[in-house]
Each structure stands twice: as structure tokens, then as C-alpha cells.
């Protein structure tokens, strides 16, 4: 190689690097959506839709069809964009979701995870800001868009009003009418929902978001009275009657009404525990454009109203209520909130988790 040619090569290489660094898309023709942090950055929504359609597929994970209306959301997305969705392991945990990031073409493109998992795995996510980014409150998103809250609700105690008396306080559950009836909707040593149930019990019994021990003590008492059923409550156990009293997110509990018409939800006014789930895009998403289009769909008025129909409170609800785009019928069906909600921070969640992991089996087993 002579000097002249070497010179030209260096120049060419430098040009490529500079062009790539600028994020310019004019030279390559097709946009690399895996690098785009917003739809407009990649050429606008139409370009995103076209690219996603060209990919033709999207892989989601751990989205049960009866959880926050995901069944309707998935079919809505399919119908609107003609993109096929593969739904992996619908009953998986948030941790299962990120564990499935294996770099293969079968890995999930997007995840819907609890706060603790979102915070712990930011290195695996790609930053992205949906069109409605500014509607999401500052505390409900990571500044660059690595994760952003999607929907949430409050911890409630769902119960079959034909099998147990009306519940007016968490302490009621210690009564003899609740023998072998009270369950959690998740194993608190590993499930976000289960843990929040224990946190709620703690706050209602004189504990706080920083002190979950009262909740563990409460379940220990339930166990001693023979009221606690160590079965993870699901739609199936509620339907069969195995778990007639269930600590659960209110929006999930609401869905049992279709199986058990006498199902009611109690949210204790002295312990309103709020919790949000978060969306994030896999950094190595096999279908980067479809993944981004999925997020745009979820945060559009259409997607947010679908969550609302499932009884979950979408993160843009306040803005949409002000703008008049919210589904008023669905919003009216949400249970009233009888006080000020408290939301555990990521740090509080992980401290509570450590305590519960170390003390749970001694308390209830």
C-alpha cells in the first residue's frame, strides 16, 4: 500500500466515523432504529411505522392477557399495524423478563417491569422518548428514557362478599370468619406485587415504607390464627374459591368481578400503597423499530385508554383528563382513593425486599 492510498483510506474511515457520530441517515438510506431515541430523530412516525412493518414482528414477555387489559392491547396493536406479536411466558416475573435478554432473535423486544428490576437493569435498556414524553411526570421516568412508568394502581384487598363479612380494616382479617381464606397474589420474597401486599399490611399496622417488619409480623399472626393460605392467588384460585380474600393490585383485583360477581375491593384509607410498572426497550432488541412503535402505541391516547379500561391508572391519565381525551366511562369505574397514596421508592423497595427475604419463611412456614 502506498502512502497516497493509505491517506485516502484514513480519510474515508474518518468520514464514516464522523457521519455515524452525527447520526446522519441520509447516506445509508435505511435508518438504524436501534440507535434512535425518538420517532422524530429517525424521520418521523411514518418512517417508524414503515420500518416496523418491514420487520413484521414483535416479541413481548410476561404479559398475561387478563393483566391490565393486555389481551386487548396486543390484539389492538396487531390489528392497527399488521405486526405479529409473540407473547413469551405470560406468567413470568419482571426478573424473568430481563433474564430473557439473551442476545438471540427470540429475545423480548420490550419489557414491562417493576421498579426494582427497572432500576437494576438500566444497562440493558435502550433510551427512547415517546411522542408524549413531556406528559410523563419527572419522577416517573429516567431522564434519558431508559425506563418510564406506564400504569399503576393501589394495593387492595379483594374479597368475595358472599364468603366473608365486609372488610373495613386490615386487622379484620385476623378474625375467625377468615379462617383459611387470606392469600397474597405473589410470593413476597420474589414478586413485586406480593411484596407490596406485605408493605401495605405493614403500613396499616403501624409500620412505614421504611419498616416492613410490621407486615411480616401481621402475616405471622394470620398464619398462627390459621387464616393465611400459602397459595399464590390468581384468577383461577379466585374463581375456584381457594383464595376468597386476596391482597392484590386493585386493577388486577377488579378483573375477578367477571368470574365472581360478588367480588369487592377494599383499599385501607390508612395504607394506600401505590405502585407503577415501567416500560423499557431491550438494548439488543431483535426488532428495534417495532419495539419503538409498541411504546408509541402504549403511550398514545388509544393505548392509555386501553389500560384504563383494564382498571389500571395510565401514567398520562391526568393530562388526558385535562385534555378531555380520557375514556370517561372507564375512569369513572376506578375505585375511589380514600386518602393520600404513598409510593415506595426503589431504595425502599429493595430494603423491604431484603428484610422479607430474610424473615418471610420463618414467619409463615
Amino acid at each position, binding site marked *: 500500500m502506498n502512502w497516497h492510498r493509505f491517506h485516502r483510506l484514513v480519510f474515508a474511515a474518518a468520514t464514516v466515523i464522523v457521519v455515524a457520530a452525527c447520526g446522519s441517515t441520509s447516506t445509508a438510506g435505511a435508518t438504524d432504529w436501534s440507535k434512535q431515541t425518538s420517532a422524530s430523530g429517525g424521520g418521523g412516525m411514518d418512517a417508524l411505522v414503515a420500518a416496523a412493518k418491514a420487520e413484521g414482528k414483535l416479541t413481548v414477555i410476561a404479559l398475561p392477557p387478563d393483566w391490565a387489559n393486555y389481551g386487548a392491547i396486543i390484539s389492538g396493536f396487531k390489528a392497527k399495524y399488521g405486526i405479529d406479536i409473540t407473547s413469551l411466558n405470560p406468567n413470568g*416475573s419482571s426478573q424473568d423478563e430481563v433474564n430473557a435478554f439473551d442476545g438471540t432473535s427470540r429475545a423480548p423486544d420490550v419489557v414491562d417491569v417493576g421498579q426494582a428490576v427497572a432500576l*437494576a437493569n438500566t444497562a440493558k435498556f435502550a433510551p427512547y422518548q415517546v411522542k408524549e414524553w413531556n406528559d410523563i411526570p419527572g419522577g416517573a421516568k429516567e431522564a434519558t428514557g431508559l425506563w418510564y412508568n406506564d400504569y399503576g394502581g393501589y394495593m387492595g384487598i379483594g374479597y368475595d362478599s358472599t364468603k366473608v363479612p365486609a372488610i373495613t380494616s386490615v386487622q379484620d382479617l385476623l378474625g375467625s370468619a377468615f379462617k383459611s381464606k387470606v392469600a397474597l397474589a405473589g410470593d413476597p*420474597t*420474589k414478586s413485586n406485587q406480593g411484596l407490596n401486599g406485605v408493605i401495605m399490611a405493614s403500613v396499616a399496622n403501624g409500620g412505614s415504607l421504611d419498616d416492613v417488619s410490621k407486615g411480616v409480623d401481621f402475616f405471622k399472626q394470620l398464619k398462627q390464627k390459621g387464616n393465611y393460605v*400459602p397459595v399464590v392467588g390468581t384468577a383461577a384460585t379466585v374463581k375456584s374459591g*381457594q383464595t376468597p380474600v386476596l391482597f392484590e393490585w386493585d386493577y388486577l383485583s377488579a378483573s375477578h368481578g367477571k368470574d365472581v360477581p360478588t367480588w369487592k375491593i377494599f383499599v385501607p384509607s390508612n395504607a394506600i400503597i401505590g405502585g407503577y410498572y415501567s416500560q423499557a426497550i431491550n438494548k439488543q432488541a431483535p426488532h428495534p423499530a417495532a419495539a419503538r412503535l409498541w411504546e408509541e402505541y402504549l403511550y398514545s391516547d388509544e393505548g392509555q385508554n386501553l389500560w384504563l379500561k383494564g382498571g389500571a391508572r395510565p401514567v398520562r391519565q391526568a393530562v388526558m383528563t385535562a385534555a378531555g381525551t380520557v375514556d370517561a366511562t372507564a375512569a369513572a369505574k376506578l375505585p375511589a382513593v380514600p386518602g393520600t397514596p404513598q409510593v415506595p421508592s426503589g431504595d425502599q423497595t429493595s430494603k423491604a425486599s431484603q428484610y422479607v*427475604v430474610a424473615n418471610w419463611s420463618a414467619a409463615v412456614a
Partner: protein
Amino acid sequence: MNAAARPLGGGRRLPLSWLGVVPFFIYVGIFLLLPTGIILAGSLVAPDGSISLSNFAGINQPYMFKSFTGSLEISSVSSILGAIFGALLAYAVATGNPKGFLRRSVMSAAGVVAQFGGVTLTFAFVATIGTEGFVYLWLKDRGIEMYPNGVWFFDLPGLTLIYLYFQIPLMVLVFIPALDGIRPQWREATESLGGNAWHYWRYVAGPLLFPSFLGCTLLLFANAFSAYATANALLTQGGVILPLQVQALLTSETGSSSPGLAKALALAMIAVVLIVMSVYALLQRRTSQWLR
């Protein structure tokens, strides 16, 4: 085993008989050695990514010991009860007519039931004596409460009951060969020498059967110790036994996920099973000296 590996012909220059076992070794390599290697390597990776033994120190916590005792408890109780009842049933079968209906039906039933496990087995029990099971409800309609002091069924006692369902038939299957090896002539010899039933059991059959009985009990222990699917379907709360603790550590979504610790725990389980199975192999060798 050793004899089978040696070529019988002897004259061939290129013995090809080993080809037959290649699939077996590939199978063992992929499904046993490779995963063990992955667990070993993973257990040495600390949460911060460095190589250390810190995961093994992490086992040293009260709740870990609790799942250890839980596992030991259920494995011992279900293996000892399974061994006793299984041995009694096996004895009844072995002393009966070898071509009779009892033997044929018990052996085929045991062969099927010993393999029954996992979600289907748990479901069968939940549908029978769970809090919405038909036996439970039938009794309740007649004023009998099966669980007056709280439901023990969804706890270790319930799991023990379910495990017995496959432990007893397994004991029958593995213990029958030993019983079949006991010849009636030995009893006749004892009697002709003036011994009674006690002497026969104390000095002849007992010492012959005991190593096999102990070995089979250990096999049952290992069987219960490593069972996962059945327990996972029944005990959905808390890592009450080791396999469930491992699962909890792998899938926790509340910030307590610790894959390294899970693998260290899995390695500890492998060690326990390895010890138990070594003793089993030793006892089997001793048994086979007499019973062939």
C-alpha cells in the same frame, strides 16, 4: 459394566464397540456435566462481577438454613415412611405367588405411579383434598373439617403426603429384587437348625436385606431432595425448600435476585446428592455380593 466396555472379539484391530456408548456420553455431557460446569462457574461470580467465594458465604444465613432443614426434613420423612411402607408392600408381593394377580397388578401399578409427579400430581391432590377438593367438601358437608387448625396441606406436611404417593411405589420397584434374592431354602435351613422366625430375621434375612433397605432409602431421599416441579406447583409461597429457594433467587423481581448465590446453593445441593448417592452405590455393591 467393565466387562461390557471390553471388546469381546479381541481379534479386531480397530475396536468399534465404544461407538455404541457415544450417544450416552454426549447425552450425559450436555445434560449433566455441562450444566454442572455452568453452575460451578456461575457460583464463583460475585454480584459485582468479580471472581470470589462470597456466594458461598451468602449461604450462611438463617433463612437459607431454614430451607436446608425444610429440604432435609421432607426428604428424610418421605424417604423413611416411603421405605417402610414400600418395603412392607414389597414383602407382601415377593412372598406371594410370583405369577399371581397381586404381584402383576402391584408391579405394573408401581411402575406407573412411581413416575407420576409434577403439576399433574399436585393438581390431583389439590382437586381431592385441597380447600376446594371434592373429598374436603364432601367431608365438610357432613360436618367434618379436615383442617381445623389451618390448612397444613399447602405446607411441608402436605408436600410429604404427595411425595409418598411416588416414594412408596418407587421403594417397591427398587426393593423387590433384593427380596426376590432371598431364597426359601435359607428359611428352611434356619428352621432345620432349630431357629425360629426371630432367629431367621435377626441372623439371616435381616443382615442380608438391611444394606439394600438402607440403600433404597437413600435413593428415595435423593429423589425427594431434588424434586422440584411437584413442590413448585404446591408451595407457591416462600423458599420453603432448597429447589424453591434457588428458584426465588433466580427470579426475584424485588431487587433480591442473586444468580451467583442461587448457583452456589444449587452446588450445595449437588454435593448433598453426590454424598447420598455414593453411599447408595457402596451399599448396593455390598448387597449384590449376596443377592444374585
